[in-house]
């Protein structure tokens, strides 16, 4: 069911330290599938599948642009992009997937980003310009890594507040969240800690859940997690999933084949049902309702909040 795109690297931009921006075109030079703002591309990075937000325009595109942060200690996908890729090289990707779309009904879009989390925000800002939507941006980046600063300034102008010190970011966040007109929706993207702080502050200032949208980054460097057990419903066998091993890996080592593709929690292929225990969701695929229902999980990244999970396998 998943279709793949054959792409060629038509441009590389290394002007920002630690971040490589790629321009990708169709191998046949033709049109690429349009995409919803905030969408990500699951790219084949030398055999590993990594998800990167598209930063270019999604209407009738002839190119896709992504920005890849060089992650130390990751699974190597970003290292491959930084070290092994040249203009003219070919690779493949899944069709763009939308998981962080702007809310059409929003009267105003408040965009808060940290570091490489700015990438889906750039996509939102492009659409906001096309549709003349009201925006406001707060962006914190490392001083030596001003990713997409030019884009943000060009697209948001005076509505963008860009800082490099965490203290400045924290100081501006409160007043920013406290004074938004009813109808505003908040979108935040960046490291898990930043997202957590932003959402916690927003909730404390009375923001209801329906107005809060986030996309967690750093999906290629997930913490190894606590060990837990999994009980296989068909045989009653109890397996231990150690820290650093995913549930998918544990099941595969036991001889159970699970359909999978990206192995990063974005594509949805490795979804398995859960009949007991409380899942710890760490994916970017399931909806909030689905996560709350607790009857399925993405076994490539998600783990358990209870000592054991039960699966009908």
């Amino acid at each position, binding site marked *: 069911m998943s279709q793949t795109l054959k792409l060629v690297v038509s441009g590389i931009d290394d002007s920002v330290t630690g971040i490589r921006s790629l321009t990708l075109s169709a191998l046949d030079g033709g049109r690429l599938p349009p995409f919803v703002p905030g969408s990500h591309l699951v790219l084949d990075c030398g055999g590993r599948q990594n998800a990167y937000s598209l930063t270019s325009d999604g209407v009738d595109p002839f190119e896709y642009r992504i920005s890849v942060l060089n992650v130390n200690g990751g699974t190597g996908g970003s290292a491959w992009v930084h070290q092994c890729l040249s203009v003219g090289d070919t690779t493949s990707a899944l069709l763009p997937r939308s998981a962080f779309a702007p809310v059409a*009904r*929003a*009267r105003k879009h408040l965009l808060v980003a940290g570091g490489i989390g700015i990438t889906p925000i750039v996509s939102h800002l492009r659409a906001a310009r096309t549709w003349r939507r009201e925006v406001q941006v707060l962006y914190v980046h490392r001083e030596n890594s001003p990713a997409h600063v030019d884009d943000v300034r060009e697209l948001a102008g005076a509505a963008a507040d860009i800082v490099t010190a965490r203290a400045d970011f924290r100081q501006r966040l409160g007043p920013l*969240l*406290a*004074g*938004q*007109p*009813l*109808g*505003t929706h908040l979108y935040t993207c960046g490291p898990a800690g930043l997202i957590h702080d932003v959402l916690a502050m927003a*909730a*404390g*200032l*009375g*923001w*209801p*859940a*329906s*107005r809060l949208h986030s996309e967690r980054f750093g999906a290629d460097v997930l913490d190894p997690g606590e060990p837990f057990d999994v009980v296989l419903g068909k045989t009653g066998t109890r397996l231990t999933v150690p820290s650093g091993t995913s549930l998918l890996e544990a099941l595969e080592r036991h001889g159970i084949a699970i359909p999978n593709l990206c192995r990063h929690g974005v594509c949805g292929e490795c979804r398995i049902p859960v009949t007991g225990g409380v899942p710890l969701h760490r994916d970017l695929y399931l909806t909030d309702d689905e996560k709350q229902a607790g009857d399925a999980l993405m076994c490539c990244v998600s783990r358990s909040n209870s000592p054991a999970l039960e699966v009908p396998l």
Partner: protein
Amino acid sequence: MISLADTSVPAWAVGAATAAPPDDRGVTYLLVGVGAAGRALAGSWASALPGRSTAIYGDDAHAVSAAVRAALDNASVGLRLWLAGPPGDCLALRGLALTAAVEEDELHVSVAGTGPIEVLCVHCQTVTTAAAIGDIVLCVGCGRRVVVYYHVSRRSGRFLGYMHDAEEAGR
């Protein structure tokens, strides 16, 4: 025969038990009390939220609409809107709120008191008042006998009305 869960009519609009307001974390509250019972209920909410609420009172939804709209235009995120009044007025005010960009988890409705509901005749687009769902009323616009159907518009709070005896004209 008709399962209410399958209709567009909220449970509170057909006499289901009135829910207490949610124990939630708004920063400011806009409290609207329509009719005597609604006023009393909204007033009790106001006393439980000292310094954090504004109250608007009136005899029916039309009387308070302009003030509610103005308050919402000037509101910030962190607001909660709580409505107290008869079902028809609450439906109309819910419609006003949702079209003014209020989200469902910022809105609470408690039914208090009784009152008329509005039906929109889909043949001539005129609004007539009625007492209850299932009633047959004379449309003030086209004179047809329309039935107040179990179908309510989210945006206006009005019920769908269609000619009850259209097929009889074929006899």
